[in-house]
Protein backbone atom coordinates (compact mmCIF):
# COMPACT_ATOMS: atom_id res chain seq x y z
CA UNK A 1 0.00 0.00 0.00
CA UNK A 2 1.37 3.39 -0.96
CA UNK A 3 2.08 5.85 1.84
CA UNK A 4 0.00 8.99 1.27
CA UNK A 5 1.88 12.21 0.73
CA UNK A 6 0.68 13.76 3.98
CA UNK A 7 2.19 10.89 5.99
CA UNK A 8 5.51 10.40 4.22
CA UNK A 9 7.24 12.61 6.78
CA UNK A 10 6.60 9.86 9.33
CA UNK A 11 8.93 7.52 7.47
CA UNK A 12 11.74 9.92 6.77
CA UNK A 13 13.97 8.80 9.63
CA UNK A 14 14.05 5.02 9.93
CA UNK A 15 15.08 3.13 13.07
CA UNK A 16 17.68 1.02 11.29
CA UNK A 17 21.25 0.35 12.31
CA UNK A 18 24.06 0.37 9.79
CA UNK A 19 24.06 -3.42 9.35
CA UNK A 20 20.32 -3.48 8.64
CA UNK A 21 18.63 -2.80 5.33
CA UNK A 22 16.14 -0.01 4.80
CA UNK A 23 14.44 -2.10 2.10
CA UNK A 24 13.61 -4.79 4.68
CA UNK A 25 12.02 -2.15 6.89
CA UNK A 26 9.98 -0.82 3.97
CA UNK A 27 8.83 -4.35 3.19
CA UNK A 28 7.62 -4.64 6.75
CA UNK A 29 5.73 -1.34 6.47
CA UNK A 30 4.16 -2.57 3.22
CA UNK A 31 3.13 -5.83 4.84
CA UNK A 32 1.58 -4.03 7.79
CA UNK A 33 -0.25 -1.48 5.70
CA UNK A 34 -1.61 -4.22 3.42
CA UNK A 35 -2.99 -6.07 6.41
CA UNK A 36 -4.28 -3.12 8.43
CA UNK A 37 -5.39 -0.83 5.59
CA UNK A 38 -4.64 2.49 7.31
CA UNK A 39 -6.31 5.75 6.43
CA UNK A 40 -5.47 9.18 7.75
CA UNK A 41 -2.45 10.44 9.57
CA UNK A 42 -3.24 8.90 12.95
CA UNK A 43 -3.50 5.41 11.50
CA UNK A 44 -0.31 5.86 9.50
CA UNK A 45 1.41 7.03 12.65
CA UNK A 46 0.24 3.80 14.30
CA UNK A 47 1.64 1.83 11.39
CA UNK A 48 4.97 3.52 11.92
CA UNK A 49 4.93 2.69 15.61
CA UNK A 50 3.93 -0.89 14.93
CA UNK A 51 6.66 -1.26 12.31
CA UNK A 52 9.23 0.07 14.79
CA UNK A 53 8.12 -2.45 17.37
CA UNK A 54 8.21 -5.37 14.95
CA UNK A 55 11.61 -4.24 13.73
CA UNK A 56 12.98 -4.14 17.26
CA UNK A 57 11.41 -7.51 17.93
CA UNK A 58 13.10 -9.01 14.88
CA UNK A 59 16.41 -7.56 15.97
CA UNK A 60 16.05 -8.88 19.50
CA UNK A 61 15.04 -12.32 18.21
CA UNK A 62 18.56 -12.64 16.79
CA UNK A 63 20.32 -11.89 20.06
CA UNK A 64 19.77 -15.18 21.91
CA UNK A 65 21.42 -17.02 19.02
CA UNK A 66 24.55 -14.85 19.30
CA UNK A 67 24.55 -15.17 23.06
CA UNK A 68 24.31 -18.95 22.97
CA UNK A 69 26.94 -19.31 20.26
CA UNK A 70 29.34 -17.21 22.28
CA UNK A 71 28.26 -18.93 25.49
CA UNK A 72 29.19 -22.28 23.96
CA UNK A 73 32.77 -21.09 23.52
CA UNK A 74 33.01 -19.96 27.12
CA UNK A 75 31.29 -23.14 28.27
CA UNK A 76 33.65 -25.42 26.40
CA UNK A 77 36.63 -23.46 27.68
CA UNK A 78 35.35 -23.89 31.21
CA UNK A 79 34.70 -27.59 30.76
CA UNK A 80 38.12 -28.20 29.26
CA UNK A 81 39.79 -26.09 31.91
CA UNK A 82 38.13 -28.14 34.62
CA UNK A 83 40.42 -30.14 36.88
CA UNK A 84 39.23 -33.46 35.42
CA UNK A 85 40.37 -32.44 31.97
CA UNK A 86 43.18 -30.16 33.10
CA UNK A 87 46.06 -32.59 32.87
CA UNK A 88 44.91 -34.31 29.73
CA UNK A 89 44.25 -31.07 27.87
CA UNK A 90 47.31 -29.13 28.98
CA UNK A 91 49.46 -32.03 27.88
CA UNK A 92 48.05 -31.57 24.44
CA UNK A 93 47.19 -27.88 24.04
CA UNK A 94 46.04 -24.79 25.92
CA UNK A 95 42.18 -24.90 26.43
CA UNK A 96 41.72 -21.53 24.66
CA UNK A 97 43.47 -22.72 21.51
CA UNK A 98 41.68 -26.04 21.63
CA UNK A 99 38.32 -24.24 21.83
CA UNK A 100 39.24 -22.09 18.82
CA UNK A 101 40.22 -25.22 16.88
CA UNK A 102 37.00 -26.95 17.98
CA UNK A 103 34.84 -24.19 16.56
CA UNK A 104 36.87 -24.03 13.38
CA UNK A 105 35.77 -27.62 12.83
CA UNK A 106 37.91 -30.44 11.52
CA UNK A 107 39.87 -32.96 13.50
CA UNK A 108 39.93 -31.02 16.77
CA UNK A 109 36.16 -31.27 16.95
CA UNK A 110 36.17 -35.05 16.74
CA UNK A 111 38.94 -35.48 19.29
CA UNK A 112 37.26 -33.08 21.72
CA UNK A 113 33.96 -34.92 21.39
CA UNK A 114 35.78 -38.18 22.04
CA UNK A 115 37.38 -36.70 25.15
CA UNK A 116 34.06 -35.34 26.39
CA UNK A 117 32.39 -38.69 25.83
CA UNK A 118 34.83 -40.32 28.22
CA UNK A 119 33.34 -38.20 30.99
CA UNK A 120 29.75 -38.79 29.92
CA UNK A 121 29.46 -35.37 28.29
CA UNK A 122 28.28 -34.42 24.82
CA UNK A 123 27.22 -31.44 22.71
CA UNK A 124 24.10 -30.87 24.80
CA UNK A 125 26.28 -30.52 27.89
CA UNK A 126 28.11 -27.63 26.21
CA UNK A 127 24.80 -25.97 25.27
CA UNK A 128 23.42 -26.47 28.78
CA UNK A 129 26.49 -24.85 30.29
CA UNK A 130 26.21 -22.06 27.71
CA UNK A 131 22.63 -21.32 28.83
CA UNK A 132 23.86 -21.28 32.41
CA UNK A 133 26.71 -18.90 31.58
CA UNK A 134 24.45 -16.46 29.72
CA UNK A 135 21.36 -16.92 31.87
CA UNK A 136 21.25 -13.30 33.10
CA UNK A 137 21.50 -11.64 29.69
CA UNK A 138 19.18 -14.19 28.12
CA UNK A 139 16.56 -13.54 30.80
CA UNK A 140 16.80 -9.79 30.15
CA UNK A 141 16.54 -10.40 26.43
CA UNK A 142 13.42 -12.57 26.70
CA UNK A 143 11.82 -10.14 29.14
CA UNK A 144 12.27 -7.30 26.66
CA UNK A 145 10.91 -9.49 23.86
CA UNK A 146 7.79 -10.23 25.93
CA UNK A 147 7.33 -6.54 26.71
CA UNK A 148 7.54 -5.75 23.03
CA UNK A 149 4.93 -8.37 22.14
CA UNK A 150 2.66 -6.89 24.77
CA UNK A 151 3.15 -3.39 23.38
CA UNK A 152 2.39 -4.66 19.87
CA UNK A 153 -0.88 -6.25 20.94
CA UNK A 154 -1.82 -3.03 22.75
CA UNK A 155 -1.08 -0.96 19.68
CA UNK A 156 -3.13 -3.27 17.51
CA UNK A 157 -6.03 -3.00 19.93
CA UNK A 158 -5.92 0.80 19.81
CA UNK A 159 -5.72 0.66 16.07
CA UNK A 160 -8.75 -1.60 15.85
CA UNK A 161 -10.70 0.71 18.14
CA UNK A 162 -9.82 3.74 16.05
CA UNK A 163 -10.70 2.01 12.82
CA UNK A 164 -14.03 0.90 14.27
CA UNK A 165 -14.79 4.47 15.24
CA UNK A 166 -13.77 5.74 11.83
CA UNK A 167 -16.01 3.37 10.01
CA UNK A 168 -18.78 4.23 12.46
CA UNK A 169 -19.84 0.67 12.93
CA UNK A 170 -20.74 -1.16 16.10
CA UNK A 171 -19.09 -4.38 14.95
CA UNK A 172 -15.35 -4.41 15.49
CA UNK A 173 -13.28 -4.56 12.32
CA UNK A 174 -11.65 -7.91 11.86
CA UNK A 175 -8.05 -7.31 11.06
CA UNK A 176 -6.84 -10.35 9.14
CA UNK A 177 -6.29 -12.76 12.01
CA UNK A 178 -6.69 -11.74 15.62
CA UNK A 179 -4.16 -9.75 17.60
CA UNK A 180 -2.13 -12.69 18.80
CA UNK A 181 -2.07 -14.34 15.43
CA UNK A 182 -0.89 -11.13 13.78
CA UNK A 183 1.91 -10.92 16.34
CA UNK A 184 2.90 -14.49 15.64
CA UNK A 185 2.74 -14.39 11.89
CA UNK A 186 4.80 -11.24 11.54
CA UNK A 187 7.45 -12.04 14.12
CA UNK A 188 10.06 -14.49 12.84
CA UNK A 189 10.28 -17.77 14.68
CA UNK A 190 13.24 -18.39 16.92
CA UNK A 191 15.53 -21.00 15.44
CA UNK A 192 17.80 -23.07 17.62
CA UNK A 193 21.48 -22.47 16.90
CA UNK A 194 23.06 -25.22 14.88
Amino acid sequence: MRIPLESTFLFRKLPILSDERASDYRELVDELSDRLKPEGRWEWRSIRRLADKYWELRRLEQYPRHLIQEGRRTALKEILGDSAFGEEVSAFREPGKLVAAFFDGGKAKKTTYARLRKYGLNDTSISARAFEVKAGVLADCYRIITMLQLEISMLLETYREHQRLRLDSKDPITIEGDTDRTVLTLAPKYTEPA
Partner: protein
Amino acid sequence: MKSSSVRRRARAATGPVTELGKKIVSQNALLHGLSVSKRSDPKLTAEIEERVRLLVGSAATAIRIVAAEQIAAAEIDVDRINEARHHLYIQAFALECKPVEDRRDEIRMRASSYGRLGGLWGAFQRLILKDPHATKHYLNLLQESELEPEIDLSFLDDDKVKPPENPDSKRVRSIEWLMPRLRGLDRYSKRANARYRRAMEIWRLVNLHSEDHDPPPPDAVGRSAASHVCLSPAVNFAEITSRLEH
Protein backbone atom coordinates in the same frame (compact mmCIF):
# COMPACT_ATOMS: atom_id res chain seq x y z
CA MET B 1 -0.65 -3.93 57.35
CA LYS B 2 1.35 -4.16 54.17
CA SER B 3 1.05 -0.46 53.40
CA SER B 4 2.27 0.50 56.87
CA SER B 5 5.40 -1.60 56.47
CA VAL B 6 5.93 -0.10 53.03
CA ARG B 7 5.64 3.38 54.52
CA ARG B 8 8.02 2.51 57.35
CA ARG B 9 10.63 1.25 54.90
CA ALA B 10 10.14 4.29 52.67
CA ARG B 11 10.81 6.60 55.63
CA ALA B 12 14.02 4.71 56.37
CA ALA B 13 15.24 5.01 52.76
CA THR B 14 16.36 8.59 52.51
CA GLY B 15 18.56 8.27 49.44
CA PRO B 16 22.28 8.70 49.17
CA VAL B 17 24.16 10.00 52.18
CA THR B 18 27.60 10.92 50.91
CA GLU B 19 28.34 14.04 48.88
CA LEU B 20 29.47 11.94 45.92
CA GLY B 21 26.30 9.83 46.07
CA LYS B 22 24.13 12.95 46.10
CA LYS B 23 26.06 14.38 43.16
CA ILE B 24 25.63 11.19 41.13
CA VAL B 25 21.91 10.94 41.90
CA SER B 26 21.36 14.59 40.99
CA GLN B 27 22.38 13.75 37.40
CA ASN B 28 19.99 10.78 37.04
CA ALA B 29 17.16 12.74 35.46
CA LEU B 30 19.53 14.17 32.85
CA LEU B 31 20.40 10.72 31.55
CA HIS B 32 17.43 10.38 29.22
CA GLY B 33 14.97 13.06 30.35
CA LEU B 34 12.12 10.57 30.67
CA SER B 35 10.98 11.89 34.02
CA VAL B 36 10.39 15.41 32.70
CA SER B 37 6.73 16.42 32.72
CA LYS B 38 5.14 16.68 29.29
CA ARG B 39 3.26 19.80 30.24
CA SER B 40 6.48 21.63 31.06
CA ASP B 41 7.63 21.37 27.47
CA PRO B 42 5.71 23.61 25.02
CA LYS B 43 6.78 21.42 22.07
CA LEU B 44 5.23 18.37 23.69
CA THR B 45 2.05 20.29 24.55
CA ALA B 46 1.65 21.22 20.88
CA GLU B 47 2.33 17.60 19.93
CA ILE B 48 -0.39 16.41 22.31
CA GLU B 49 -2.87 18.86 20.80
CA GLU B 50 -2.06 17.71 17.29
CA ARG B 51 -2.47 14.06 18.22
CA VAL B 52 -5.77 14.77 19.92
CA ARG B 53 -7.03 16.46 16.77
CA LEU B 54 -6.00 13.47 14.68
CA LEU B 55 -7.54 10.99 17.08
CA VAL B 56 -10.86 12.72 17.65
CA GLY B 57 -11.37 13.87 14.08
CA SER B 58 -14.78 15.27 13.31
CA ALA B 59 -16.49 13.45 16.18
CA ALA B 60 -15.19 15.90 18.79
CA THR B 61 -17.09 16.09 22.03
CA ALA B 62 -15.59 17.42 25.23
CA ILE B 63 -15.46 14.04 26.89
CA ARG B 64 -13.88 12.48 23.83
CA ILE B 65 -11.25 15.22 23.78
CA VAL B 66 -10.40 14.57 27.44
CA ALA B 67 -10.05 10.86 26.73
CA ALA B 68 -8.02 11.45 23.56
CA GLU B 69 -5.71 13.75 25.50
CA GLN B 70 -4.91 10.94 27.88
CA ILE B 71 -4.09 8.65 24.96
CA ALA B 72 -1.95 11.27 23.25
CA ALA B 73 -0.01 11.97 26.45
CA ALA B 74 0.54 8.26 27.03
CA GLU B 75 1.58 7.79 23.41
CA ILE B 76 4.16 10.53 23.72
CA ASP B 77 5.56 8.84 26.80
CA VAL B 78 5.85 5.57 24.92
CA ASP B 79 7.47 7.31 21.94
CA ARG B 80 10.01 9.06 24.14
CA ILE B 81 11.00 5.73 25.64
CA ASN B 82 11.29 4.21 22.17
CA GLU B 83 13.58 7.02 21.16
CA ALA B 84 15.77 6.45 24.21
CA ARG B 85 15.86 2.75 23.38
CA HIS B 86 16.86 3.40 19.80
CA HIS B 87 19.67 5.62 21.05
CA LEU B 88 20.93 2.75 23.17
CA TYR B 89 20.88 0.40 20.17
CA ILE B 90 22.91 2.90 18.17
CA GLN B 91 25.44 3.23 20.97
CA ALA B 92 25.71 -0.53 21.38
CA PHE B 93 26.19 -0.99 17.67
CA ALA B 94 28.84 1.74 17.59
CA LEU B 95 30.71 -0.16 20.30
CA GLU B 96 30.57 -3.25 18.17
CA CYS B 97 31.94 -1.92 14.92
CA LYS B 98 33.47 1.45 15.56
CA PRO B 99 35.63 1.93 12.48
CA VAL B 100 39.29 2.43 13.10
CA GLU B 101 39.21 5.73 11.23
CA ASP B 102 36.86 7.10 13.86
CA ARG B 103 39.47 6.47 16.51
CA ARG B 104 42.07 8.67 14.85
CA ASP B 105 41.07 11.65 16.97
CA GLU B 106 40.78 9.50 20.05
CA ILE B 107 44.36 8.28 19.57
CA ARG B 108 45.69 11.76 18.97
CA MET B 109 43.89 13.03 22.04
CA ARG B 110 45.27 10.26 24.14
CA ALA B 111 48.74 10.85 22.76
CA SER B 112 48.64 14.52 23.64
CA SER B 113 47.24 13.94 27.09
CA TYR B 114 49.72 11.25 28.06
CA GLY B 115 52.87 12.88 26.78
CA ARG B 116 55.54 11.17 24.76
CA LEU B 117 56.82 8.60 27.20
CA GLY B 118 55.64 6.28 29.88
CA GLY B 119 51.88 6.50 30.21
CA LEU B 120 51.45 7.18 26.51
CA TRP B 121 52.59 3.75 25.47
CA GLY B 122 50.72 2.11 28.25
CA ALA B 123 47.56 3.66 26.85
CA PHE B 124 48.48 2.63 23.33
CA GLN B 125 49.17 -0.91 24.38
CA ARG B 126 45.78 -1.14 26.00
CA LEU B 127 44.09 0.29 22.92
CA ILE B 128 45.95 -1.92 20.51
CA LEU B 129 45.44 -5.07 22.52
CA LYS B 130 41.74 -4.40 22.58
CA ASP B 131 41.70 -4.49 18.83
CA PRO B 132 44.65 -6.45 17.43
CA HIS B 133 43.35 -6.27 13.88
CA ALA B 134 43.79 -2.55 13.89
CA THR B 135 47.40 -2.73 15.06
CA LYS B 136 48.93 -1.92 11.69
CA HIS B 137 46.59 0.94 11.22
CA TYR B 138 47.50 2.37 14.61
CA LEU B 139 51.18 2.14 13.78
CA ASN B 140 50.58 4.09 10.58
CA LEU B 141 48.73 6.68 12.56
CA LEU B 142 51.66 6.93 14.92
CA GLN B 143 53.94 7.72 12.03
CA GLU B 144 51.51 10.31 10.74
CA SER B 145 51.30 11.87 14.18
CA GLU B 146 55.09 12.30 14.10
CA LEU B 147 55.44 10.42 17.31
CA GLU B 148 58.71 8.56 17.41
CA PRO B 149 58.05 4.95 18.06
CA GLU B 150 60.95 4.60 20.50
CA ILE B 151 59.25 1.76 22.19
CA ASP B 152 59.48 -1.90 22.64
CA LEU B 153 57.08 -3.27 20.07
CA SER B 154 57.61 -6.83 21.17
CA PHE B 155 54.10 -6.89 22.55
CA LEU B 156 52.95 -7.04 18.96
CA ASP B 157 54.72 -10.32 18.33
CA ASP B 158 52.45 -13.03 17.11
CA ASP B 159 52.42 -15.07 20.26
CA LYS B 160 51.59 -12.10 22.49
CA VAL B 161 48.76 -10.68 20.45
CA LYS B 162 45.36 -12.04 21.37
CA PRO B 163 43.89 -14.47 18.82
CA PRO B 164 41.46 -12.76 16.44
CA GLU B 165 38.03 -12.37 17.96
CA ASN B 166 35.15 -14.14 16.33
CA PRO B 167 32.32 -11.84 15.16
CA ASP B 168 29.93 -13.40 17.66
CA SER B 169 31.94 -12.23 20.63
CA LYS B 170 31.90 -8.64 19.39
CA ARG B 171 28.14 -8.77 19.00
CA VAL B 172 27.76 -10.41 22.38
CA ARG B 173 29.86 -7.73 24.04
CA SER B 174 27.54 -5.09 22.69
CA ILE B 175 24.44 -7.09 23.70
CA GLU B 176 25.82 -7.46 27.21
CA TRP B 177 26.39 -3.73 27.33
CA LEU B 178 22.91 -3.06 25.98
CA MET B 179 20.72 -5.36 28.06
CA PRO B 180 21.16 -3.82 31.53
CA ARG B 181 20.56 -0.40 29.99
CA LEU B 182 17.38 -1.54 28.29
CA ARG B 183 16.34 -3.09 31.59
CA GLY B 184 16.94 0.30 33.20
CA LEU B 185 14.31 1.76 30.88
CA ASP B 186 11.92 -1.03 31.78
CA ARG B 187 10.22 0.76 34.65
CA TYR B 188 9.55 3.83 32.49
CA SER B 189 8.24 1.55 29.79
CA LYS B 190 5.95 -0.36 32.16
CA ARG B 191 4.62 2.87 33.63
CA ALA B 192 3.95 4.35 30.20
CA ASN B 193 2.27 1.17 28.98
CA ALA B 194 0.04 1.01 32.05
CA ARG B 195 -0.95 4.64 31.45
CA TYR B 196 -1.66 3.83 27.82
CA ARG B 197 -3.83 0.85 28.76
CA ARG B 198 -5.82 2.96 31.22
CA ALA B 199 -6.26 5.67 28.62
CA MET B 200 -7.48 3.08 26.15
CA GLU B 201 -9.98 1.73 28.65
CA ILE B 202 -11.43 5.21 29.07
CA TRP B 203 -11.41 5.82 25.33
CA ARG B 204 -13.33 2.62 24.71
CA LEU B 205 -15.92 3.46 27.35
CA VAL B 206 -16.33 6.99 26.10
CA ASN B 207 -16.82 5.77 22.54
CA LEU B 208 -19.22 3.12 23.63
CA HIS B 209 -21.48 5.58 25.42
CA SER B 210 -21.12 8.66 23.27
CA GLU B 211 -22.63 6.91 20.27
CA ASP B 212 -26.14 7.48 21.61
CA HIS B 213 -25.08 10.80 23.23
CA ASP B 214 -25.52 9.28 26.63
CA PRO B 215 -22.69 9.91 29.10
CA PRO B 216 -21.37 6.74 30.69
CA PRO B 217 -22.72 6.00 34.13
CA PRO B 218 -20.23 6.46 36.98
CA ASP B 219 -20.21 2.73 37.70
CA ALA B 220 -19.32 1.86 34.14
CA VAL B 221 -16.40 4.25 34.02
CA GLY B 222 -15.23 2.82 37.29
CA ARG B 223 -12.26 3.54 39.40
CA SER B 224 -9.59 3.49 36.69
CA ALA B 225 -11.25 6.15 34.59
CA ALA B 226 -11.95 8.35 37.56
CA SER B 227 -8.41 8.09 38.89
CA HIS B 228 -6.96 8.78 35.49
CA VAL B 229 -8.74 12.06 34.97
CA CYS B 230 -7.99 12.87 38.61
CA LEU B 231 -11.61 12.75 39.77
CA SER B 232 -13.06 10.93 42.69
CA PRO B 233 -15.36 8.02 41.72
CA ALA B 234 -18.13 9.65 43.69
CA VAL B 235 -18.30 12.63 41.32
CA ASN B 236 -21.34 12.69 39.10
CA PHE B 237 -20.09 11.96 35.61
CA ALA B 238 -23.09 13.48 33.85
CA GLU B 239 -22.49 16.75 35.64
CA ILE B 240 -18.83 16.83 34.58
CA THR B 241 -19.71 16.07 31.00
CA SER B 242 -22.15 18.92 30.83
CA ARG B 243 -19.65 21.24 32.52
CA LEU B 244 -16.97 20.26 30.00
CA GLU B 245 -19.31 20.79 27.10
CA HIS B 246 -20.00 24.32 28.22
